[in-house]
């Protein structure tokens, strides 16, 4: 086998990643996915390499809890066959490689721009002239929405082709939120600057992205975090899951005009994020997670407060959920709406709730556990129908599960064991990959260091990167009036995608 197999958060010498010629690289990765059901691609990207491009492919094996890394050196401007032709889960990755490096793919089904980054290969392409798919027809009409939407949400453009009220096709154009984050990780040299960048990748996944960065960084510096740090990180991830899922249930109720649910779930989110404020002074947990230290040790008093708060939360949460999920008018809107079949989900390689809703077993907490997840022995929660209802139900059940995990976690609070230490500098000429199951799904950060341990490449993958295409397929043949509820139930990130 011409790959190196690593575990989550393992740092390896860059030279240990086998370099294949492109046809062998393609064949190996496609075959490994075909032959092992529990495998999926967690990242596939290019690194500028002396005027050429080094492609790095990271395939996670969920059964063995490993990640297989392989690479190939290719020249820009040359034609290549795609992975996507044989496995559509690569379509977005290859579009990104094409956009960034001008790799010419001969048989890509949908070679469109991804985000119009400032350092794109072809500067003549502009976000205003995105090549939308269109159909010349008397009967069909197009509906364009965005980039600025009606509510207070991030920008993105949706172009529908409709037959009357029915959506035949949706194309989603992103890139408006592109801030050049990956490049800033290289340019901003201080650790605190990089932690701040991680916190600002997606403000609704502060814990998710910051834990990914922090675990990666500590691994590079050969630092093993103490139990207190691991507990804080696990707790932050589960609290973030509860807070966002609750807010999402509120928004879904808003979209079906169910006022009571909207108000009750909305206000239930408040004590959870206020707990973050009590703990670290910020409602969205910015500032909480730091490599090699914590400024906010978790105390017994905080744990006691959290217990009280969760008890109160749970009572009201169960009550409103009982009501919502038995309400015929709500169920009529949720059930069989916005379906993504298991086959589609698998083909696209969706992650997080957008996979588990269609019985696709994908959860880093289970397959590649980090921090205290191994101890929690995470049980997968799955639904079968892949519709709005499955997504809503899963959120409800995941909240229940998170509450149970938090109760277990805070049973015994380790004393503030970690003394603030000066982290060693990262290992030179190394590669590290970090996977975290955020509330939205699998987050992947990967880094490469140079001769003196300086960061020379940083790659971020938000779960939304996989899932946006899932939304586009799920709305087909639905009424356009159901689009908001479909969109909300996927709840994907624009800034996390655009970086």
């Amino acid at each position, binding site marked *: 086998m011409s790959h190196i197999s690593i575990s989550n958060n393992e740092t390896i010498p860059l030279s240990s990643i086998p370099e294949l010629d492109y046809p062998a690289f393609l064949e190996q990765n496609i075959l490994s996915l075909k032959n092992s059901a529990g495998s999926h691609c967690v990242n596939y990207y290019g690194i500028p390499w002396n005027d050429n491009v080094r492609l790095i492919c990271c395939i996670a094996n969920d059964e063995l809890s490993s990640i297989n890394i392989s690479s190939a050196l290719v020249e820009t401007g040359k034609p290549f066959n795609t992975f996507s032709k044989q496995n559509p889960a690569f379509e977005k990755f290859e579009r990104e490689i094409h956009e960034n490096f001008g790799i010419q793919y001969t048989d890509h089904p949908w070679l469109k721009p991804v985000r119009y980054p*400032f350092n794109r290969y072809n500067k003549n392409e502009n976000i205003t002239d995105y090549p939308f798919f269109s159909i010349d027809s008397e009967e069909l009409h197009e509906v364009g929405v965005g980039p600025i939407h009606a509510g*207070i949400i991030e920008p993105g453009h949706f172009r529908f082709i409709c037959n009357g009220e029915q959506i035949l096709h949706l194309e989603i154009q992103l890139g408006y939120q592109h*801030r050049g984050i990956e490049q800033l990780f290289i340019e901003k040299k201080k650790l605190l600057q990089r932690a701040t960048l991680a916190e600002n990748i*997606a*403000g609704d996944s502060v814990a998710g992205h910051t834990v990914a960065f922090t675990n990666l960084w500590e691994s590079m510096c050969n630092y093993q975090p103490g139990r207190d740090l691991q507990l804080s990180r696990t707790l932050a991830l589960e609290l973030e899951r509860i807070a966002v899922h609750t807010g999402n249930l509120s928004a879904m109720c808003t979209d079906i005009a169910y006022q009571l649910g909207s108000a009750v779930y909305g206000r239930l989110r408040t004590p959870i994020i206020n707990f973050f*404020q009590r*703990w670290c002074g910020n409602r969205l947990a*910015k500032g909480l997670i730091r490599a090699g230290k914590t400024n906010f040790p978790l105390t017994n008093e905080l744990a006691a407060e959290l217990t009280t708060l969760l008890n109160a939360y749970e009572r009201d949460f169960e009550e409103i959920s009982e*009501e919502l999920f038995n309400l015929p008018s709500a169920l009529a809107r949720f059930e069989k709406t916005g379906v993504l079949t298991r086959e589609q989900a698998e083909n696209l390689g969706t992650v997080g709730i957008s996979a588990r809703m269609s019985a696709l077993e994908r959860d880093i907490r289970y397959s590649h556990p980090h921090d205290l997840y191994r101890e929690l022995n995470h049980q997968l929660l799955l639904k079968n129908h892949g519709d709005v209802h499955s997504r809503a139900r899963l959120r409800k059940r995941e909240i229940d599960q998170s509450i149970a995990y938090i109760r277990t976690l805070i049973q015994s609070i380790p004393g503030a064991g970690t003394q603030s230490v000066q982290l060693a500098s990262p290992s030179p000429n190394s590669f590290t990959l970090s996977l975290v199951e955020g509330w939205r799904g699998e987050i992947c950060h990967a880094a490469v260091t140079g001769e003196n341990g300086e960061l020379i490449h940083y790659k971020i993958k938000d779960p939304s990167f996989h899932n946006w295409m899932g939304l586009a397929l799920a709305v087909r043949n639905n009424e356009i009036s159901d689009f908001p509820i479909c969109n909300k139930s996927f709840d994907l990130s624009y800034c996390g995608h655009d970086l």
Partner: protein
Amino acid sequence: MLDNLKILFHQGKQYIPDITTAELPGIFRGRPEISTEKVNEAELVDICPTNAITAGPVCIDLGKCTFCGECSFSFPNKIQFSRDYKISANERSKLIIREGINEPVELNPAVIRKEISDYFSGSLKLRQVSAGGDNSCEMELNACGNVNFDMGRFGIEFVASPRHADGIVITGPITENMAQPLQICYDAIPEPKIIILAGVDAISGGIFEGSPALNRSFLSAYTIDLYVPGNPVHPLTFINGVLELIKKRN
């Protein structure tokens, strides 16, 4: 029906009765207080991820500060963050907090345009544009309208169409890719109109300052009516700032 009433009853009263005097729970990093104690200023300046601290005299620029608190952890006798959340200002210079001066951040009435008080004091409709925002300020602006903060009680609301709006609230560092949509949206708002920058990213670019993916030229073309610091902005900071701005003045 009975179930619904029961649910309603179980929620109790959730709204914050007085938005202007509400106390925040736990710790919060609001307006910093900087003592005149002598410290190694170079070391202090070097801590900050966003160059918000300058030396001689030591100042913190709330328009650049991400409120990470790191300076205060290293120099607790020099810098302490108070829980004062009223940190909005209508002049950029007012966001700079100097050592030894422990005063509230306030709006300067002299530079508030007369139309603002004339037209908007009883009702203000705002259009929000996220221009590279990370969805944290956006979530907090949404929270301004929830049952806890209930900004609607003051006649302040976010609306869908710029045509219905009296002003624009910008979040995010303003990306190149959003520069044009932002301009189009602003142009669509009828006169008179106001501009509010919400969050450190919008005010200074924050941690994204200097990124080649930004285009902040929009900001140099217009007068900014209100700066609301924060990462993200706290709903109380936003609501109180806006209330001060549109207060009836004769």
